[in-house]
Structure formats: structure tokens, C-alpha cells
């Protein structure tokens, strides 16, 4: 027993000696070197994008690191002539509509699944959850036919191609958001509901005046996820926008690649414009952003 204690002490002493001798310091230096190399690899493409976006057309072919004179007007050109202002506005409208829709539908449904009793509640909830497994490529084609008005007549017009409703309505509800909010609503103490009921409040008043103000964090997470999902959406908008009228940024950027091939500097300026809103959101809500994604695993 005494020997053991002694050897433990020795191990501790050995360790701190090694520390003083600087052997571990070399190790730490190596760690920093690797971490910094990783950081450079992560950031360099962004630098490349910004540098290229400030070059003249000629410089994009010859140069790699920085233009002689930064061409800030490239951004003006991309914004006006390459119609990124229009795409930007479309993206903002599409994202806002989708986000509002998701918040509305998933708050109501999440609340009902958490706190109201009705026959078939768990069955319906289970069926909704099962849609999370189905890949987009399977439902994409039927949805395209629905939106084109081929399968059944649609409200708000015979076809939803090239329209805001076509871009946003199909995504105005998803099982994930409902699930997330339900998990939160279910934890709200029953005493609150009892007290509210004694005061004569129904579900609608309880939800709007007591539950929602308490649920800022999960609502924020749902809003953040729907913002990212909608802002980054590409395949569906590509299918349902055949003209510029409602084309969002991602599709605009892509058509710019195919139509204006060699104008790399404008393309990069467009990419910067596309990325900025997400970056701003990221820096403003960093903690929630990182943790929200880390705990729920957004994207594939």
C-alpha cells in the first residue's frame, strides 16, 4: 500500500519534471501547428473568394493572391447587372415566408401533441415522424407534378411554378420542428395550465400569453434551422423557377455559372453576397447556432 502511494507520487513528480524540461512544450507547439494548419485550410477558400471577387477579369486569370487595385465596383456590378439584388430579395421573401409558416404550424402542432388530448394523437405523431426518413429524391418528382397543378387543382392559381407559394408552401411544416417544440412544451409544469384555466383562459390564450414567452430558446432554434434550410435550398427552387421572377440566390448563382462562365470575379462577388447573411447570423447567434446544430444534427 505504502509502495503504491510512493509510486503514484513518483509518477506525478516525473510528470511535472518533464513539464519543466520543456519536452511537453514541443508537443504543444506541434499541436498548435496542426490546429493552425487546419484553420488555414478551413479559411483559405474564403480568402480566395474575397481576393478573386476584387480582381479585374484579366487578373483572375493571371493572379492568385491579391489584386493590384481592389475593384470594389465588382460588387456593385454583381448586385445590379448580374441581378443579384433581385435574387437576394427573392431569397429574403422565400425564407421569410417559409420561416413564418414553419413557426406557425409547428408551434400549434407541437403544442397540441404535447398538451392536448385527442383520439389518435400518438398515431398521427408517429406517422408525421416517419416522413423524416424519406429521401428528397423520392418525393421530389410527385411534388413537382403537384405544384405544376397536374394531380389536383391548387388554390391560388392553376400552377405554382414561378411563384412564392410554390417555393415556400411545401416546406411550411416539417416533423423535425414539431418534434423539437413538442419536447419543450411537454416539460412546462402542469400547475401553470391549472392556474391559467382557473383564470378562465383556454388553450389559445395559454399558448400565446404564457407558453410562447417561455419558449424563446426553442423557437429561436426552429427559426434558425428553417432560415438555414430555406436560404440554402437549391434543388427544389431550381425545379420550380424557370424564369428570373422568383429565382432565389442559390439558383441565381448557379445560372450565373452556366451563363456567364468566364466572369469569375463577378461570380465570386455573387458568392460573397450569398454567404454574408448566413455568416452574420452565425456570428450573432454563435453559441445557439453551434450548439443547436451539434445537439440535433442538422443537414446530412
Amino acid at each position, binding site marked *: 500500500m505504502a509502495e503504491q502511494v510512493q509510486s503514484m507520487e513518483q509518477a506525478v513528480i516525473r510528470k511535472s519534471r518533464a513539464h519543466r524540461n520543456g519536452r511537453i512544450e514541443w508537443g504543444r507547439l506541434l499541436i498548435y501547428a496542426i490546429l493552425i494548419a487546419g484553420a488555414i485550410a478551413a479559411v483559405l477558400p474564403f480568402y480566395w473568394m474575397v481576393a478573386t471577387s476584387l480582381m479585374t477579369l484579366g487578373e483572375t486569370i493571371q493572379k492568385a493572391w491579391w489584386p493590384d487595385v481592389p475593384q470594389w465596383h465588382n460588387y456593385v456590378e454583381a448586385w445590379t447587372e448580374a441581378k443579384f439584388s433581385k435574387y437576394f430579395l427573392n431569397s429574403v421573401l422565400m425564407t421569410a415566408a417559409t420561416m413564418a409558416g414553419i413557426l406557425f404550424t409547428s408551434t400549434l402542432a407541437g403544442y397540441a401533441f404535447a398538451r392536448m388530448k385527442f383520439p389518435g394523437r400518438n398515431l398521427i405523431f408517429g406517422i408525421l415522424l416517419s416522413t423524416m426518413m424519406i429521401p428528397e429524391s423520392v418525393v421530389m418528382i410527385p411534388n413537382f407534378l403537384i405544384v405544376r397543378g397536374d394531380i389536383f387543382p391548387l388554390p391560388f392559381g392553376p400552377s405554382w411554378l414561378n411563384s412564392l407559394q410554390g417555393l415556400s408552401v411545401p416546406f411550411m411544416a416539417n416533423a423535425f420542428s414539431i418534434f423539437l417544440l413538442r419536447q419543450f412544451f411537454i416539460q412546462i409544469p402542469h400547475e401553470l395550465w391549472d392556474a391559467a384555466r382557473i383564470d378562465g383562459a383556454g*388553450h389559445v390564450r395559454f399558448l400565446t400569453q404564457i407558453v410562447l414567452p417561455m419558449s424563446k430558446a426553442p423557437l429561436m432554434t426552429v427559426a434558425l434551422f428553417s432560415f438555414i434550410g430555406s436560404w440554402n435550398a437549391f434543388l427544389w427552387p431550381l425545379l420550380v423557377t424557370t424564369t428570373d421572377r422568383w429565382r432565389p440566390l442559390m439558383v441565381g448563382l448557379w445560372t450565373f455559372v452556366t451563363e456567364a462562365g468566364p466572369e469569375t470575379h463577378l461570380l465570386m462577388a455573387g458568392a460573397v453576397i450569398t454567404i454574408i447573411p448566413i455568416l452574420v447570423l452565425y456570428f450573432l447567434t454563435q453559441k445557439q447556432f453551434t450548439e443547436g446544430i451539434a445537439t440535433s444534427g442538422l443537414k446530412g
Partner: protein
Amino acid sequence: MAEQPLTEQDVLAQRKERIDWREAIEGYLFITPAVLIIAVFGLFPIAYAFYMSLHRWRVRKGPLVGLDNYEKAIGDWQGALIFVVGFILLYVAYRLWQSAFTEERTWMLLSKAGSALVVIAAWYAISFGWGRMLLEGDDRFLNALPITLYYSLGTVPVEIALGMILAYLLFQKIRGQEFFRMLYFLPYITPVVASAVVFRTIFSPRETSLANRFLQFIGLEPQKWLFESRPFLEVVFGLKLEGFWAGPSMALVSIILFGIWTYVGYNAVIFLAGLGAIPKDLYEVAEIDGAGQWQLFRHITLPLLSPVTFYLALVAFIGTFKAFNHIFVMRTPSALGTVDVASIVIFDTFYKANQYGYATAQAILLFLIILGLTMVQNRVLGERVFYG
């Protein structure tokens, strides 16, 4: 009727109560908007996709053709069946090999020899079945499968290994940990279409492109990257192999590099959370017992992280089989279809060739493949996970 926090009995008791129809109607009204949208755009399309796949359907609905669309994709049923049996045999061999480590000596030799034989049989079945499928089937669709597999095997292990290394290093009480974490996360949160557009110019064949600058910096010849349809092994090592072993094209390798760049930081962030959950005293005890850094990593970190690794591998694997956006943006005509993974082929069948029925059949086949792979991965990797 004072309600307390819900317990099991409460739930049961409540279930026996009479249904409060006023509340029930209100409940149905609450869920109506969500259920309506998910039913119309999430559930109905699944059934309709299956219905479409049974028809000849070019823009407008045509005659019912039964399973013809599926047969058109995979060639003939027997070939496909032999092919699948090959994979089942591989699984059997894996099981046999595992049983070798628990039994006595003679049994060990027997089961090792047995599993070697089964692997040979499996390999024969797979290549024979595949050959038959290629004879009659749709070349583009079938070729998309090994391409998808290359993409998957090229990205997932690398991004997980690198993510784990970075997270492990970041966890060593590093100054500016938060700052590094933020930088590593940037590629992941960037809209993938935008970053893919940027990487299109980074991997351009120009001598001044970032990728070629890097090659020149370390003293190598510039490459054509996304515009190179020849296999990576041939371009870099001069190795000319046949069939599946020829490996991914240079263009696909560029896309794989992009995939790794995008997801390493995400994996690192999640691993970092996992590392934080490992009890500190485990390390202290092991250090006192004289364990070195590598032993600490191998015998404490790795096993205790395995649930996280498993989760990430599963999600990443499924993700690579569904990958579309960045591959669509980064593909070039000069790559000659060597980067066309399954979801790209499905899109082309639908959007360019206007074969709606056939495209849904392909999509359903892809879904079945993903489902099968997920199940296998669940069994094979899942049982290696250590849940503490």
C-alpha cells in the same frame, strides 16, 4: 382534480377518462395546418412515387408497365439477385471470421478458412451478378453506384478521422479553443452551393488556381482537377487498373476533397462535445498507472467516443448516398460523367430526359439501397459501439 407532474399511472388514468370532445376538436384544429402540409407534400408523394414508377410516364402519364422501369435500371432480376446474395455472403463471412476469436483452436482455424472460402464465393457472386446486370441494365444508373460508393468511402472515413484528431488536439486545454472551433465550423455553415461555386474556381485547370498553386508550392505538376476524367490513380501514380479497381476519377477526387473540407469541422465540433462528456478521473487514474498519451487515446478516448463516432458515420454515410447539390454544381462536361452519383443520374433522368416514371423507379431503388446499407451498418458497426 389537481394535476401533478405526469407519471406512468397518471397517463394510464387519463387514458381511461372520457374523451373531452371540446378539447379534442380544438386539438385537431391545432394540428390541421401542419398535418395538411406534411400529408400533401410529404406522405402522399411517397405513395404517388410508387404509383408513377409502375407507369411509362414521360411528362404526361402513359400506360401501366408494371415493374418494367425497375428492370430497365437493374438489367435482369437474376443478376441482381446473385449480386445481392454476394453481399449477404460477405456478411456471413464477416460473422464466421468473428466467431473465430471466441472458440477453441481447431474451430478457429476452420472458421477462418471457412470465411476465406465464403469471401471468394461472395466475390464471385458479386462480380458475376454485376456482369449480368451490366449486360441488360442501364449503364448510367449502374455506373452511378460504384461512383457513389467511391464518393462515400473517400469522404466519410477521412472526414471522421480528421475531425476526431482536430477535436482531440483542441481538447488539450488549448488557448483560443473557441476561436478555432468557430473557424473550423465555417465551411459547414456556408451555403453549399456558394462554396461549391468557389471550389469550382479553386479546382480549375488554370495554373493560377489555388489548387495548382499549392501543387507548385510543394513541387508538383499542375493538374486539371474537376476537368480530368481519367482515374486519380492513373494520373498521379501511373497505375492503370481495370473496372472497379481503377478507382475514382481525378474530378471525383476533387469533389471528395471538397466534401472533406465541408464536414471535418462539423465532425470536430461534435467530437468536442463528446470529449467533454468523458469523465476526467478516468484519465487521471490511467496516468497514475503510467499510461502514455497514445494509450490514453487508444484505451479511453476511442472507446468512450465510439457512440459519437457511430452516429457521425451513420449520418455521413447516408448523407453521401443522397449528396446532390455540390456535385451538381461542381460537375463539368470534361469529367465525362465520372462524377455522376446516383442522385445526379436520377435528376438527369427526370429533368433532362423527362422520363418521370423511370426516374421515380431509380429514386426508389436508391432509397432501398440506402435502407439496406443503413441496416448493415447498424449491425456491423453498432455492435462495436461501447456505451459505457
